[in-house]
């Protein structure tokens, strides 16, 4: 758990503003879901893994004698999918975005139990163009935030599922292997013994090689002609997306392990990395809406993780320093206090942030300081803190004129 201090909030709002602007420009609409949701929304197969579910904050509500538990939202996508099913499923397409906090227990003390996400979901968009759309939208947000050296990694949930199927594990073993993989233990896949050496070769190749263009995928297709139909069809899907990205000049790395914690992905998956940390991820999840008893609606989406992104943004210099104005009363007489409030109100009405001070403390980090003495003929002294110049002013109108001219 952590506090967000004024400087953190400047970064937070910058991320939020850039994200909101980009999403609105791409035709996405903002939604907000409740912090408390029912637990069963997240226990349905194919949503969160048992390991993630063991870390959710769930409890009986004050009217929870029926045993129905509520949960502090542990994920952003599932509640938005519920919102879509409950309210917007009549729409052929729904492009939605949100800024939300999610909660999960974290026992190491290294991370927060409350984390923030900026997410966008595209319901009704069948594969290819919408897949590319969400990748490019996420990339645009990251670019506009000025974060450099960002890596985009691509994978495909269908490829992983096809490989698991080929291992011919028992249903229990397959579920365990899926959990291990989703928790990041990809080595478990190499340790699984297959009766088919071709599969072991394929797994070793996909875990060992990282391609940088669709050519790599063409090579995989050519090297493993005996791979299963499911594998081939997922590979084709990934080839189509990467070819489009190649044509659009978008650089990426193909890394089969670029699937993070969620089991609901069915198609392309991606994640963004910067300074060694994951700063976002997403993918296609065509089964989620039908699984939650909605119609058979394809969907894809992504989330950017606000907490690591905040660390990457350059320390914002005090924004107040650019435009803030301090209105100081020389004395604490009723007349001077009244005049100070009037000056500050006029400045605010003209669009300038204005702060009041009657303590006589030494001012810092302001663009202008207006000292109100109330003595005619120059009841105001205006200081330009950048030019380090002082001048008298006879009226509020004169102050406004000087400040506006900069």
């Amino acid at each position, binding site marked *: 758990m952590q506090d967000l201090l004024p400087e953190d909030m400047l970064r937070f709002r910058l991320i939020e503003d850039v994200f909101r602007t980009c999403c609105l420009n791409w035709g996405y609409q903002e939604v907000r879901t409740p912090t408390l949701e029912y637990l069963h929304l997240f226990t349905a*197969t194919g949503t969160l893994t048992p390991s993630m579910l*063991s870390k959710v904050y769930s409890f009986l509500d*004050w009217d*929870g*004698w*029926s*045993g129905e538990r509520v949960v502090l939202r542990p994920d952003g996508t599932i509640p938005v999918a519920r919102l879509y099913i409950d309210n917007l499923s009549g729409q052929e397409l729904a492009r939605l975005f949100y800024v939300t906090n999610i909660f999960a227990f974290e026992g190491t003390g290294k991370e927060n139990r409350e984390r923030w996400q900026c997410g966008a979901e595209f319901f009704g968009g069948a594969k290819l163009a919408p897949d590319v759309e969400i990748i490019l939208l996420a990339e645009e947000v990251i670019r506009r935030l000025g974060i450099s050296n960002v890596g985009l990694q691509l994978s495909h949930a269908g490829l992983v599922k096809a490989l698991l199927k080929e291992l011919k594990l028992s249903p229990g073993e397959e579920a365990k292997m899926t959990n291990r993989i989703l928790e990041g233990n990809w080595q478990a896949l190499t340790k699984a013994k297959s009766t088919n050496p071709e599969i072991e070769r394929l797994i070793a190749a996909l875990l060992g090689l990282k391609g940088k263009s669709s050519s790599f995928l063409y090579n995989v297709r050519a090297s493993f002609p005996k791979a299963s139909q499911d594998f081939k069809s997922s590979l084709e899907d990934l080839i189509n997306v990467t070819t489009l990205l190649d044509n659009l000049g978008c650089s990426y790395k193909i890394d089969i392990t670029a699937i993070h914690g969620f089991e609901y992905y069915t198609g392309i998956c991606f994640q963004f990395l910067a300074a060694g940390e994951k700063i976002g991820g997403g993918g296609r999840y065509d089964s989620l809406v039908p699984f939650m008893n909605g119609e058979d609606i394809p969907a894809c989406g992504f989330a950017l993780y606000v907490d690591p992104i905040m660390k990457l943004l350059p320390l914002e210099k005090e924004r107040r320093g650019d435009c803030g104005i301090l209105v100081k009363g020389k004395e604490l007489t009723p007349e001077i206090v009244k005049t100070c409030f009037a000056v500050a109100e006029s400045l605010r009405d003209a669009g300038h942030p204005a702060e009041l001070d009657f303590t006589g403390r030494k001012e810092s980090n302001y663009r202008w300081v207006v000292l109100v003495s109330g003595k005619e003929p120059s009841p105001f002294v205006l200081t330009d803190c950048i030019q380090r110049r002082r001048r008298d002013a006879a009226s509020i109108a004169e102050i406004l004129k000087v400040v506006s001219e900069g």
Partner: protein
Amino acid sequence: MRNYQAGYIKLALPKGRFLSPTASLLAEIGLGFQDYSDKTKQYRIRSARFPSLSAKILQEKDISIQVAVGNYDLGICGLDWIEEFLVKYPAGALVKISSLNYGEGSVHVVASAESGIANLNDLSDGRNDYRIVTEYPNLAEAFALNLRMRRFRIFPVWGAAEAYPPENADLAVLWGKSGADIATQGLIPLKRLLPVTAFLIANRESLENKDLSQILTCFAAKLTAEPPTSIENGLDISEELKVSRTLWQAKEINLALPDGHQQAPASQFLKQAGLALQGYSEEVSSRRPSADLDWLGIKVIRPQDMPLQVANSNFDLAITGEDWLLEHLYRFPSSPVKKLFALGFGTVKIVAAVSQEMPVADIDELRSLVQSSKFAPLKVASEYINIADRYLRDNHINPYKLIPTWGASEAFLPEDADMLIDNAQTGKTLKQHKLKIIDVLFRSSACLIANKDSLASPDKKEKMEFLTQKLRAGLL
């Protein structure tokens, strides 16, 4: 910061099922405690051989928690309660040292023979909302999550989980001697979660920093490799268990009667009221007694569990204690459970008590003492968590920490808690343990409770009134 130099080693020993075999084991390995027997009335016992070793006799459910929080360095208790703790708090401070190789039975997931659930696949494939009743809510939740059950609700109970399926629960997670034993209760064992053997456990910090070697050496000959703690595949039921089918039929009105201490006076009361029951006496006791009213279904469960069960419409009426009703209503203020009338037996006082050594005479003086930081936070042991929480808040005791217990809260004072909130009949037990009452919260006796919706239901109203009138007659 804990003191590792003092050399005192604290051991938590179990009451109940493991008391006898544990006492024998300790005697055999030269760690015997003279007063560790079924007959003892003490909680604190000292080792004759090791002056630095002291032990306390606790409820098994409390031992894993008490060792984890560091009140005890070592403990002995059943694997079921250890895993119940560890499955929820895997990163906690509890370390399993070794199985002690005695114990009996296993924790099973069971379904009623009437439920139509024959194996685990039926559970993960289905879209039903499964009700799971259990004394092991954490183990039950982990089981449901790992099986990817899409929708489930867990009803923690104080006991008698086997009595709930099929009408009041779809599944139960409970202890059973064997699959065959479970089958005789009309239940199908679907999966064996873990075998219940006694385990030696330790607090991690103690094990890492304190010299416990003298004591551990005594156990050396008994320490063995850990037996499997979970069995991956469902229990092999190819041995064709003979599941005895309980003849169960839905009844119009359902009444819950208490087991335990309340059973004898409740049975007496019902006799007085002229309600003839078969299977609810000291001689013949069944979980499903029958009455001479063909529309009345009766089940015997723990009084602690009744308000929640009545709120869920599993029962229309129940005989429980006013204490447990209040405990429920503090947790669920809008619950549809209503007290109809007190029955005049099983009267106890719910009291706040502290050690006789504590220099306070009432709750106001205690508040001042806590404010002076001498006992901050105040550690309060209680089996009535919601009543205790409300009482402490209403009396502006701040800060405080609640220690949930499963009865016998007096065992916790003064070492592991500063105050208890518990029931007392005469106060004699409290005095014996050098405790004094500083406040009486309220008096509680057995009462008849009802579901408000059942009372208002046109289909049930007449029979509910008939039954309550009949029971009211027992008061005269």
